[in-house]
């Protein structure tokens, strides 16, 4: 009986979370409507709230992080699934990646402040001086920027990509590798034309799930992205994400601002749930597909 109750409670928890947030967000939802999503001003003093720049910042930082992390994560996943290296070294690499996953977000943030920000400031200024005519690289170069946050985010989602890609690479039957080698393929021809295409849905799923993680990642981003709601094309400008906005403003918010933040939180829940459900769906289909190969 208690077990049944616990199960019902678990299920209702999700509904309760979403319901509670929507309930508290209701004043803002009814007041601002969809204008909240398309608005580009966020000014609590004037009670004007629009999150478009923040939504763009969320998508841009997560996408950039994924772009950086996917090749790295795939390279490591290949090392862990193919027999390039003796098992002992593979074990070490695995341990290192697990360590990356275990480091708290706030420690990444601290490290980012003292290592990545100075680097981005120094080289960003050089790049902006030379290539500033490209909108993405326009100056002035800030240390607290979209680029800084994306670099650290890339590290943080790497373990997700590695773990899921690895398991889908390992699931490729040995018979396919054997078949390819027997036809005179080199190792990399086998990897690129047989193994990766076979594991592709799993690799895609790892990317989607990593994207979802990056969107929800809070502390490191809040410490590094510069928390600016101004729209800018440049990767070297400060930006903001939904989760960083919540982290920075909740403790001191009151009145309608709390409600507006709840609205933003509801958007974040909606986006991450959507991305995660998509990722899980792709992953499930992959598992079915590779099961058919055995």
């Amino acid at each position, binding site marked *: 009986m208690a077990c049944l109750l616990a199960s019902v409670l678990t299920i209702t928890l999700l509904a309760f979370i979403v319901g509670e947030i929507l309930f508290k967000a209701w004043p803002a939802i009814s007041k601002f409507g969809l204008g909240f999503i398309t608005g580009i001003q966020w000014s609590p003093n004037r009670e004007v709230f629009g999150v478009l720049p923040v939504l763009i910042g969320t998508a841009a930082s997560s996408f950039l992080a994924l772009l950086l992390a996917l090749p790295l994560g795939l390279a490591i996943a290949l090392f862990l699934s193919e*027999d390039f290296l003796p098992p002992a070294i593979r074990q070490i690499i695995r341990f290192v990646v697990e360590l990356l996953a275990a480091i708290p977000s706030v420690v990444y943030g601290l490290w980012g402040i003292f290592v990545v920000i100075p680097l981005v400031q120094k080289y960003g200024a050089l790049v902006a001086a030379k290539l500033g005519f490209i909108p993405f690289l326009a100056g002035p170069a800030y240390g607290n920027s979209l680029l800084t946050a994306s670099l650290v985010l890339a590290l943080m989602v790497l373990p997700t990509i590695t773990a899921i890609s690895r398991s889908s690479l390992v699931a490729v*039957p040995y*018979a*396919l*590798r*054997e*078949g*390819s*080698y*027997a*036809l*005179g*393929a*080199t190792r990399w*021809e086998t990897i690129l*034309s*047989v193994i990766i*295409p*076979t594991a592709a849905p799993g690799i895609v799923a790892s990317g989607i799930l990593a994207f979802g993680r990056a969107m929800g990642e809070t502390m490191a981003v809040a410490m590094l992205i510069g928390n600016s709601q101004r729209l800018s094309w440049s990767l070297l400008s400060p930006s903001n994400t939904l989760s960083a906005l919540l982290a920075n403003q909740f403790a001191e918010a009151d009145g309608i601002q709390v409600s507006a933040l709840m609205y933003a939180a509801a958007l974040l829940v909606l986006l991450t749930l959507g991305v995660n459900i998509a990722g899980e769906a792709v992953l499930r289909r992959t598992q079915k*597909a590779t099961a*058919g*190969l055995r």
Partner: protein
Amino acid sequence: MTTEASQHPLELTNDFAPGESNFIKVDNFKFFYGKKEALHGINLEIPSRKVTAFIGPSGCGKSTLLRNFNRMNELIPGVHHEGDITIHGTSIYDPSVEIIALRRRIGMVFQKSNPFPMSIFENIVYPLRIAGQNTRSVLEETVERCLRSAALWDEVKDRLHDSALGLSGGQMQRLCIARAVASRPEILLMDEPCSALDPIATAKVEELIIELKKDFTIVIVTHNMQQASRVSELTAFFYLGNLVEFDNTRKIFTNPSMKQTEEYITGRFG
């Protein structure tokens, strides 16, 4: 070089003399998995354009030897060998031999069919594509030639671009045979090609093997003695890592000279 080769420079020709008596020559060959010696000094000469069957109980080393002809065993960590295997008088272990070229000249068919999760067409042209051959007409021609020689053309010609995974078990295995001959190898190695197939599919593959020996030197490992007697001209009986007897198939099955061979083929062990 024949004219055909100059048209398709990446395809190899079969310009060896037919009927060589020692086409594949195994010379005092020993093979080790780590410390364990799996083959104890095998001597064997396999003639070309004939079907040679390797029989023997499980673990006797017949598959191990077969997998050394195209050096597939080297994918297993911790193996080494002594002695030599020569094909056409060239040692396959000669430093100038490139494994990828060796394997293009020796097709292999596995116990369980292993089509890639691509279309039927792409499966067959895979060996050509990896060698840099992407000319449409050459690829189409190859697909038809290979499917015809695997007696699969009529069954699949209308759905060449469907996934290979939609074929039946027997069709998949014949597709793998078609793929194995796509790079115009001279030798076909078959590692128990029918063990996962039903009797009807098995009969089709056996028919195909007899057909294929006109163009290929075929070495087949089998557990099924009827199969060996049906398809092969020569039979080698292996036991505990030794070659016990190698002779004409008819002689092996009617009048073997070794007592162990007789016991095995009459079903007294194994």
